């Protein structure tokens, strides 16, 4: 573990880079995941790594962190070539990683988590005391204060992430990799993270920020490496580029980041929710007193930090989770009181694109054709005389693939072989083809590449313009701002505010997401 004083804030220009990758090449079977990747990260800098899903970012970082071994190429740390065959060797070389999903033992304290694996002896007390002193120093040097004796599960997500960063620093990391660090944070917490990263930079650490959010790259990085199809598409200095420029590098063409749409013309109320309540298995209310209505021809966006009741709301409306109170009026029925199941709700014209596609929306091991009719498998058009009508099932899938540009256009292929964007397009096609009156849609573009995002957004707007009502749940604030006509903000299982699109600003929504009730006109 490095006990030497922090590196000077400014590294001399001729110093070797903190991390240098030379010609990294990696294949998985037929997939060429990384092609001759070369770039360098200077000490005392924040380096962005950006690219669409499947561009090879994660593979590259997993090679650097020792989860995978490169087929060819060289990793150099401070000018010395190193062999990294495991995360332990990466840590020994001074490389730390903060994963998107935290690797913390939730019912241990912060201190116990920090020393986990580096206890330094058979008895814990020595290691814990040393760690306590070291955490104090890190808190002073970097402004990384944490309640060291608190149990991790009681900390906010932002603080948990801070514990992950401390874990890496405690192990002597000079190069810190953060994989999609803001996915779970409020805008305010993200700002705090960026402040932290800047102070790490000032102390001479090298930070690699892996993300697909252009805004973050622009806000905090010094240089950016753009990856596309496993190769470096461009390397630019952040202040010399623009979000549009980066997006062009990522997809190789200009992309509309703003969706063009007419003002909404809301019509009749299609779905009304009154005092809806959902309790989890332990009896804890996850959704409290939620009331609103959806009108024809509008998109209602639900903003909020993940885990504040949006998922429960979506599932209660779709019928995959049962409500413990309140009512949902749709098509002249009360879906709660009559306990109408998801299949019957679909038949009434209430379609649902679930948030977590792989967990709920599809069966990854089944063919695309089977997935393109999941939930509609009892429909007359897919059955003939007691048996499945295989030709009709395939033809229906091929039709959806053609209209939604799903590639490759092979109904027989296993769904898992499609990219995230193509899977999502197929799910969307399935639900839109059923011609619903109300479409519930969760995270429509999670894990979807930029080209497909544009397409999906256009389809959703078209659906709205066709007089349907859409309820959109997304953790991407940009997406809600781009699509929604009205915005609800959820916090702690309640809708704590409603904003018309014209009144909505990121600042207002951010405050409401954090639980502050902002006085707004409904």
């Amino acid at each position, binding site marked *: 573990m490095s006990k030497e004083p922090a590196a000077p804030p400014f590294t001399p220009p001729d110093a070797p880079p903190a991390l240098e990758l030379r010609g990294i090449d990696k294949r*998985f079977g037929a*997939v060429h995941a990384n092609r001759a990747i070369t770039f360098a990260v200077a000490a005392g800098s924040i380096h962005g790594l950006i690219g669409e899903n499947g561009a090879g970012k994660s593979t590259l970082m997993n090679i650097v962190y020792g989860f995978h071994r490169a087929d060819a190429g060289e990793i150099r740390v401070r000018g010395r070539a190193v062999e990294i065959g495991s995360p332990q060797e990466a840590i020994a070389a001074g490389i730390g990683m903060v994963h998107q999903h935290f690797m913390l033992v939730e019912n241990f304290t912060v201190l116990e988590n920090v020393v986990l694996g580096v206890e330094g002896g058979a008895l814990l007390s020595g290691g814990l005391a040393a760690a306590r002193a070291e955490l104090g120093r890190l808190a002073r040097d970097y402004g990384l204060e944490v309640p060291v004796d608190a149990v991790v599960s009681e900390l906010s997500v932002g603080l948990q992430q801070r514990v992950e960063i401390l874990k890496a620093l405690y192990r002597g990391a000079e190069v810190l990799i953060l994989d999609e660090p803001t996915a779970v944070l409020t805008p305010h917490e993200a700002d705090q993270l960026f402040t932290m990263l800047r102070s790490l930079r000032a102390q001479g650490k090298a930070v690699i920020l892996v993300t697909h959010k252009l805004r973050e790259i622009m806000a905090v990085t010094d240089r950016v490496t753009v990856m596309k199809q496993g190769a470096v598409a461009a390397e630019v200095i952040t202040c010399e580029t623009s979000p549009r420029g980066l997006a062009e590098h990522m997809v190789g063409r200009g992309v509309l980041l703003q969706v063009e749409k007419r003002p909404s013309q809301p019509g009749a109320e299609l779905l009304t929710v009154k005092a809806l309540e959902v309790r989890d298995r332990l009896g804890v209310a996850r959704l409290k007193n939620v009331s609103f209505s959806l009108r024809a021809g509008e998109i209602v966006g639900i903003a909020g930090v993940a885990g504040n009741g949006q998922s429960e709301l979506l599932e209660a409306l779709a019928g995959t989770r049962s409500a413990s109170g309140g009512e949902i009026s749709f098509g002249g029925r009360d879906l709660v009181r009559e306990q109408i199941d998801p299949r019957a709700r679909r038949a009434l014209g209430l379609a649902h694109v679930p948030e977590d596609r792989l967990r709920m929306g599809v069966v990854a091991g089944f063919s695309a054709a089977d997935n393109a009719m999941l939930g509609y498998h009892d429909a007359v058009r897919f059955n003939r005389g007691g048996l499945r009508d295989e030709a009709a099932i395939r033809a229906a899938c091929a039709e959806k693939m053609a209209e939604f540009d799903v590639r490759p256009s092979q109904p027989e292929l296993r769904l898992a072989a499609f990219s995230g964007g193509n899977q999502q397009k197929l799910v969307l096609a399935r639900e839109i083809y059923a011609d619903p009156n109300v479409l519930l849609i969760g995270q429509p573009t999670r894990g979807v590449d930029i080209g497909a995002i544009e397409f999906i957004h256009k389809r959703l707007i078209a659906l709205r313009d066709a007089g349907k009502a859409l309820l959109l749940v997304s953790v991407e604030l940009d997406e809600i701002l781009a699509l929604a006509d009205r915005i609800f903000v959820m916090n702690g299982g309640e809708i704590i505010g409603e904003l018309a699109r014209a009144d909505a600003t990121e600042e207002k929504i951010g405050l409401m997401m954090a639980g502050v009730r902002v006085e707004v006109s409904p």
Partner: protein
Amino acid sequence: MSAPAKLPRWAELSLLPLINLGVALVLAGVIIKILGESPLAAFKLMVTGALGTQEGIGYTLYYATNFIFTGLAVAVAYHAGLFNIGAEGQAYVGGLGTGLVCLYFGTWPFWVVLPLAVLAGAIFGAAWAFIPAWLQARRGSHIVITTIMFNFIAAALMTYLLVNVLIKPGQQSPETREFSANAVMPAAHELFAKIGITVVATPLNLAFGFALMAAAGVWIFIWRTRWGFALRVAGANSAAAVYAGISPPRIIVGAMLISGALAGGLGLNELMGSQHRILMDFPSGAGFVGIAVALMGRNHPVGIVVAAVLFGALYQGGSQLSFDMPKINRDMVVVIQGLVILLCGAMENIFRAPLTALFMRLSRAKEND
């Protein structure tokens, strides 16, 4: 993109099981060698004993019939995401249903007795599977545990019935009186004789045909009906099933009813076809072999029929071996069968990683050419 490497389909379906089988036989050969017999001679004896004569083939297929029924039972439950360890007990109780029809309605014409016997076997087997299924669906009691326990309960129940209720009056051994002639499944040699072909008399009987029909039925059900689709969705991803409006508890109960009914088919072969009475422990482990058969057959009816014939051959060849080689007793044959079950069933994946790596190296070499 870290798509896990996959074996080509043909290697997955044939090469991998064959390697497993080969390794099991090599290990068995080592044991035979230690016992002082020649492994080659022993295997030759097993193969000719199982497949070299009409009698051998008859016995092999007769054993295979039991394994097809139990293998299909395990496979249907497997597709619904359930591990049915209880095919043994379900076959035992199912056989009771078949046997009762044969005992009490056995004087009716054969073509009336047969459908009744088939139906009763299916219903009794399904009923025995229903209780663990219901407990799993409504109470969350793990089906592996409950089906194992229900094997013991079935054994106790059958012992009680055979010793106290159904036993033939005036006899010591716990078995029923013999079925009347109308309640006996026609043997293969009798059926062949009708079309003028003479074959050696073996226990092989019409139940083999029922087993093949059951295999075809299972294939159609699983892959060609919407109910089979719903069952597979629930088995592959229960959250997606709920989303699609499929009720997982209903699928659990439905799949286990079908599974138990299939296991109940064993009585057609064993009781109606061969023993012509109900006796103690007639499934004699076929329910457990069914697990290995289903695993080796990749839960596909065609694979199950092939694997069942293989295990049938192992049984028949094994008994031939213990008959002809004095140093290899009956227990030794069980060891050999156990090795095959171990390698093909329990440890079927141990050669997957090296084989996959080999295929990747080969395909890469081809690309570089």
